[in-house]
């Protein structure tokens, strides 16, 4: 499996074109804005609560800052992640480079994994940038951070982002148009984001299934500090399915020329 050269090439392409830099900058700017607003709000509420001897009892950084922050980051990711992956196969197809890539002695699977890992690396860099916020809480505000929920929160972000990327890779393998790839990715993700809302109108097993399918249903537990296998498996399953479908899509494209 020659994953490594593909991985290096993709990462190089991310960072020699402006794509990675623009995505990193915009993502961190928006995330910073959210953190500022949430943390500012938390400080104000804390001051008010300080007047009331019993008021601050239930107030803590995990619930009041990190959980809303992670929830907000998920929404930004929903918008940004399709842009990370849209290029990966669509551009190769449009420029014809896929014809060379698929005649080199590498398996389709290695190409897929190489590209996926490169996108995952860019994503990890993006969320690594947000580690500045807990650091600020820790050092500047001298507030205490609960390490457990912070760690699980980031594990949750990684799992969810990994799933977004897999879906994006699949959409990118379907078309040679990057815009189409991005829109399809966003559409799929948004549908699974809100699919739980329809569960209210369904009863019994159908309702349970719809709820379970919802991304929204699975991403909050991590920020609470809970590492639930149900949620971990949901993301890993979804990722594996999307990657498998991508592999199939590559193969079928071969047959159809």
């Amino acid at each position, binding site marked *: 499996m*020659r994953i490594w*050269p*593909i991985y290096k090439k993709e990462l190089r392409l991310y960072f020699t074109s402006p794509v990675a830099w623009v995505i990193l900058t915009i993502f961190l700017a928006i995330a910073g804005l959210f953190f500022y607003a949430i943390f500012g709000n938390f400080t104000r509420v804390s001051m008010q609560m300080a007047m009331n001897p019993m008021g601050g009892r239930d107030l803590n950084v995990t619930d009041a800052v990190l959980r809303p922050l992670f929830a907000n980051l998920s929404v930004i990711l929903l918008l940004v992640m399709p842009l990370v992956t849209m290029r990966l196969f669509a551009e190769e197809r449009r420029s014809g480079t896929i*014809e060379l890539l698929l*005649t*080199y002695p590498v398996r389709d699977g290695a190409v897929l994994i190489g590209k996926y890992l490169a996108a995952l690396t860019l994503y990890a860099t993006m969320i690594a940038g947000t580690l500045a916020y807990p650091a600020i809480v820790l050092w500047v505000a001298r507030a205490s951070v609960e390490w457990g929920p912070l760690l699980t929160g980031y594990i949750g972000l990684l799992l969810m982002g990994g799933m977004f990327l897999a879906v994006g890779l699949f959409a990118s393998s379907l078309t040679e148009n990057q815009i189409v790839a991005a829109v399809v990715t966003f559409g799929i993700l948004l549908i699974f984001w809100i699919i739980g809302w329809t569960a209210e109108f369904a009863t019994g097993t159908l309702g349970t299934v719809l709820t379970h399918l919802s991304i929204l249903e699975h991403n909050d537990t991590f920020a609470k500090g809970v590492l639930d296998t149900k949620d971990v498996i949901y993301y890993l399953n979804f990722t594996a399915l999307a990657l498998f479908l991508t592999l199939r899509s590559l193969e079928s494209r071969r047959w159809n*020329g």
Partner: protein
Amino acid sequence: MIEVQNLTKQYGSFTAIRDVSFSVAPGDIVGFLGPNGAGKSTTMRILSCFMPASGGSARVAGYDVFRESMEVRRRIGYLPESVPLYSDMRVGPYLDFVAEVKGVPRSARKRRVAEVMDRCLIADVQSRLIRNLSKGYRQRVGLAQAIVSDPHVLILDEPTIGLDPRQIAEIRSLIKSLAGEHTVILSTHILPEVSMVCSGVVIINQGAIVAQGPIDRLVEEFFPTARVAVEIAGPRPAVLDGLRAIPGVVQVEDGGPDRDGPARLVVESARDRDVRGEIFQLAAQQKWNLLELRPVGMTLEEVFMRIVAGEESGAAPGEVAAGEAEVPA
């Protein structure tokens, strides 16, 4: 080195190639010739393992392109017609990437990439972005990526298209220098290229092979006569009659539109008879001025035109239209 048997490829209801069979011996350079849309690229895409055939089989370097695709891919260098390169990469890193993907060992990679860049005359642009290169340079970078792993078989789809005459000459001599150690199959619709570079030729039209073999043999097969161009200043009817009376002359074509000036004629005779001496004697006896007497080599171009024209006049109109349709990628 390359054996193709009854290869067929269908895109939906459209048949791009049908029952194509040919073979290429190790070390040969074979030209794959045909009009646009004849099925050249389709055949090459199958040989390079980019897509599977609908029927038939193809073996490259002894391995089946479908069942042992990885083995084949390790042994080929492929240059698609559109020369697809990563425009956001620099030439050096790009070739290094290709070498690594193709399994050139780490220790040899740097040397190998430098060697190939020298050979393809692109060492001076190695740190430029591929997007900023001219067509000629891109073409040579494409060729460099094909030969970087020193493959047994090279599959080149129109390697000289879009180049200026000097670059064409360079690329041709480069390809020629690959003969012997590499087996090369190159497609083109430039006929002189084939006569200059290739030892054999495969002519394809409307998805089917119409002729193949060494160039000399094809020329003989399709032009059984030898031809001599003659220019004689003399009364035209007498000149024509005189020439036709020479034993062995099959046909005399009147080539000159100029009715009053010297007659420009093409004399066809049996291949094994040289009639030039007799033409000279005839002119001398009649006191006509012999202005030109020149043997005309039969060009591949004419062979090609004759074959393709013959095919098309026999085909139904609908099939001709289908044959000319561009195959979607």
